[in-house]
């Protein structure tokens, strides 16, 4: 069972990593402890600082917002907060509320410093978790004594929490290990694949979560799900008492043998019943008992040993039974080959392998694909190891509850320090948003750049932020982030952001943060905004240069073809006309007046063309003196072409300019560029051949005229 072993070793390493060295409480810390003094009066801060700065490192904040910012940045690095109540912008109660919302109050003791002595104020402060009060006027002796007392008290408490946590953790580890050992013995004896127990556990957990999502018929807490999944490993423990000859017999069992085999559920249950139980263990044993005894019952009442029917069978046993059957089907056994996932699902839902709760069958077929993926991941050894570590961590979280926040917070502190360091180093706008409390935190550099506060409470109502993001900007981004999922939390967009009064393009890269609940709840987001103004301008310039003819500003041939093909694809029912335009005797214009003049004529013609078509029509200079325009029309295309043709014949600096035009209609030749171009070119050829200065519509009789320079056009310009 190599994967299981590896999993446990990794758990052990992780546990060692997480375990705080004994006595690493506040007392033993080498560095000076930090005290945050929050008071709007500089003199009051100075008096307190003077009383304390020989023994502690003093941080100061002028008001509640600054205090929150300092706490956000330093976290549990701050050992104590001395907090005034009456302050501008955010008062002491506001700070306490945020400390409660973020759980900081459990980590960082607060002593309130105030001249306020009304009992309702005092009571409110105590309710918000304040440890002690210091009344003005300050007395050096009292201030020092209270600070020392509070710090000692918290240090001792932290140590105690650590010790209790450790014991719970170790106990939990021990019982999980016992369950693993037991179930592996059974497995070994059964000659089952090593993965059976793991699969049943994974399947059980999967089905429990899905059924909870689908119905509230079974009240299942996260702890229930964890317990049932872990002890599902014990379902066949009774097989220990079954003769190995029967257990591993290839081929069908006789009726007598089967009768012996069937006793394993009752035997297992009895084994568990005889174990003395107390405290938390009771629930584990009760669940294990249910599973052992009833995992061969059937929904229709025809199972064994008790013939329970429907929901008289505990949901734990119902689900383990289904998981057991599924894994038996998909595994190779001495008496049968392995079936595919799809085949197994088909057999189970088809009623070939027993009678199950219809709700469970519904879950199984609805989430069949997801289930296959989950189990496929189990096959890969390395992921098994990581997942085992994760489930160990989950179990730890569950049993020690709030206590684990100690350990987690220490890691978080480290991460916070790392984050703050890098945030300060990079010149980037980094941000973090939490829904509760509604708070936007900006990196110091970012805040300076945007001229915003580092901490913005209720950002939705913040005017300065509105100015930066533009009207509706905050809501747009918020909506898009909420629309992401925990599986795909990434979000990128490009927006204009007001930086020091100037609108600049930024790329916002963010990810949403979700709770561990089922279904997950949106909790906020973090990300950064990168200034791409320069990139964007450059890119737009490149795009423009790549798609446009530099002389006239009309589209070039490649982008023209792209544009019209797309238009025709978009509106396949519309009428379209493609016209090819050629300036008559342009070589003479150039030769007589010079290339500069020639270029001016080309530019002028482009202007005439643009002015005589609608803005939705598409014009192009394909090269030399060859132009195209492309129209979408409803009625009377001849009149339109006639009008445009006349606008393209003009006098430029007393030099008469005329053109020849060939027109092809989509309804005649079909909606493809190639067909339209070929036909328009043919018509242009005919127009040129018929004496220029005219337009021609393509018709099939022009076919074959191409090589005939004296071709007779039938429809000439009036």
């Amino acid at each position, binding site marked *: 069972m190599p994967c299981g072993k590896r999993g446990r070793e990794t758990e052990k390493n992780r546990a060692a990593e997480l375990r705080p060295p004994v006595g690493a409480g506040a007392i033993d810390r080498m560095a000076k402890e930090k005290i945050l003094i929050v008071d709007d009066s*500089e*003199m009051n801060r100075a008096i307190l600082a003077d009383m304390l700065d020989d023994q502690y490192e003093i941080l100061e904040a002028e008001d509640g917002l600054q205090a929150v910012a300092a706490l956000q940045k330093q976290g549990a690095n701050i050992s104590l907060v001395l907090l005034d109540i009456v302050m501008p912008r955010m008062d002491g109660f506001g700070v306490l509320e945020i400390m409660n919302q973020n759980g900081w109050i459990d980590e960082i003791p607060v002593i309130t410093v105030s001249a306020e002595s009304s009992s309702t104020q005092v009571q409110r402060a105590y309710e918000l978790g304040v440890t002690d009060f210091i009344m003005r006027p300050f007395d*050096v002796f009292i201030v020092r004594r209270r600070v020392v007392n509070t710090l000692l008290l918290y240090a001792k408490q932290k140590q105690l929490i650590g010790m209790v946590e450790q014991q719970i953790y170790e106990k939990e580890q021990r019982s999980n290990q016992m369950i693993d050992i037991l179930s592996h013995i059974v497995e070994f004896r059964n000659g089952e694949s090593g993965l059976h127990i793991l699969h049943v556990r994974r399947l059980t957990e999967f089905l429990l979560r899905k059924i909870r999502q689908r119905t509230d018929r079974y009240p299942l807490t996260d702890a229930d799900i964890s317990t049932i999944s872990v002890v599902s490993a014990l379902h066949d423990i009774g097989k220990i008492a079954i003769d190995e000859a029967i257990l591993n017999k290839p081929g069908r069992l006789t009726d007598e043998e089967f009768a012996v085999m069937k006793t394993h559920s009752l035997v297992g249950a009895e084994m568990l019943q005889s174990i003395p139980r107390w405290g938390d263990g009771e629930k584990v044993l009760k669940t294990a008992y249910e599973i052992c005894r009833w995992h061969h019952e059937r929904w229709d009442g025809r199972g064994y040993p008790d013939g329970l029917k429907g929901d008289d069978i505990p949901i734990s046993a119902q689900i383990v039974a289904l998981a057991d059957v599924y894994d038996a089907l998909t595994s190779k056994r001495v008496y049968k080959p392995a079936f595919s996932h799809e085949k197994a699902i088909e057999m189970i839902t088809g009623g070939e392998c027993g009678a199950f709760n219809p709700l469970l069958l519904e879950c199984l077929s609805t989430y069949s694909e997801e289930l296959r993926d989950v189990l496929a991941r189990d096959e890969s050894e390395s992921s098994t190891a990581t997942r085992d570590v994760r489930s160990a961590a989950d179990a730890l979280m569950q049993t020690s509850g709030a206590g684990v926040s100690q350990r987690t917070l220490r890691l978080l502190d480290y991460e916070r320090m790392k984050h703050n360091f890098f945030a300060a180093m990079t010149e980037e706008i980094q941000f973090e948003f939490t829904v509760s409390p509604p708070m936007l935190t900006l990196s110091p550099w970012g805040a300076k750049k945007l001229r915003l506060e580092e901490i913005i409470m209720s950002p939705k109502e913040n005017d300065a932020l509105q100015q930066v993001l533009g009207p509706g900007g905050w809501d747009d981004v918020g909506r898009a982030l909420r629309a992401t999922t925990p599986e795909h939390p990434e979000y990128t967009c490009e927006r204009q952001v007001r930086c020091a009064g100037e609108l600049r393009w930024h790329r916002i890269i963010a990810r949403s943060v979700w709770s561990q609940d089922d279904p997950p709840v949106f909790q906020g987001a973090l990300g950064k905004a990168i200034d791409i103004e320069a990139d964007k301008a450059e890119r737009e310039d490149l795009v423009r240069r790549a798609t446009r003819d530099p002389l006239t500003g009309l589209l070039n041939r490649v982008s023209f073809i792209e544009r019209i093909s797309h238009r025709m694809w978009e509106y396949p029912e519309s009428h379209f006309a493609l016209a090819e335009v050629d300036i008559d005797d342009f070589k003479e214009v150039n030769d007589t007046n010079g290339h500069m003049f020639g270029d001016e004529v080309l530019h002028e013609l482009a202007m005439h063309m643009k002015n005589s078509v609608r803005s939705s029509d598409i014009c192009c200079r394909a090269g030399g003196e060859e132009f195209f325009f492309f129209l979408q029309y409803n009625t009377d295309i001849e009149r339109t072409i006639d009008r445009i043709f006349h606008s393209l014949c003009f006098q430029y600096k007393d030099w008469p300019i005329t053109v020849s035009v060939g027109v092809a209609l989509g309804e005649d030749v079909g909606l493809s560029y190639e067909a339209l171009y070929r036909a328009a070119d043919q018509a242009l050829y005919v127009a040129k051949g018929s004496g220029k200065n005219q337009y021609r519509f393509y018709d099939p009789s022009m076919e074959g005229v191409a090589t005939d320079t004296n071709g007779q056009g039938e429809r000439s310009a009036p």
Partner: protein
Amino acid sequence: MTLKECYTALGGDYEDVLGRLRSERLVQKFVLKFLDDGSYGLLCDSFAAGNWEEAFRAAHTIKGMCQNLSFTGLGASSHALTEALRGGKKPGAEELLEQVKADYAATAEAIRAYQAEL
């Protein structure tokens, strides 16, 4: 003028402050700092502008400093004004402000006289 005489002149309790702060150096440091604090100016301005909330906070700050420094006279009048401004202006606040102004002027005069002789 000694620090003790200065306290007598501004109507403060020198024994009390020395008892709490335990060092003449500290008391002197903060007495001299008192005039740098902007709360008095803020009180007068926000009172004139009818911004009672800010006036309350300013009066409250002055009261807190007076308590810490044992400036009994100004402490009492700023305490009364604080209460008259808590949760909005109550009748009589104008008279109390005049009293605070008078006490502040006396306190400031005493501190300046003491400072001048240092």
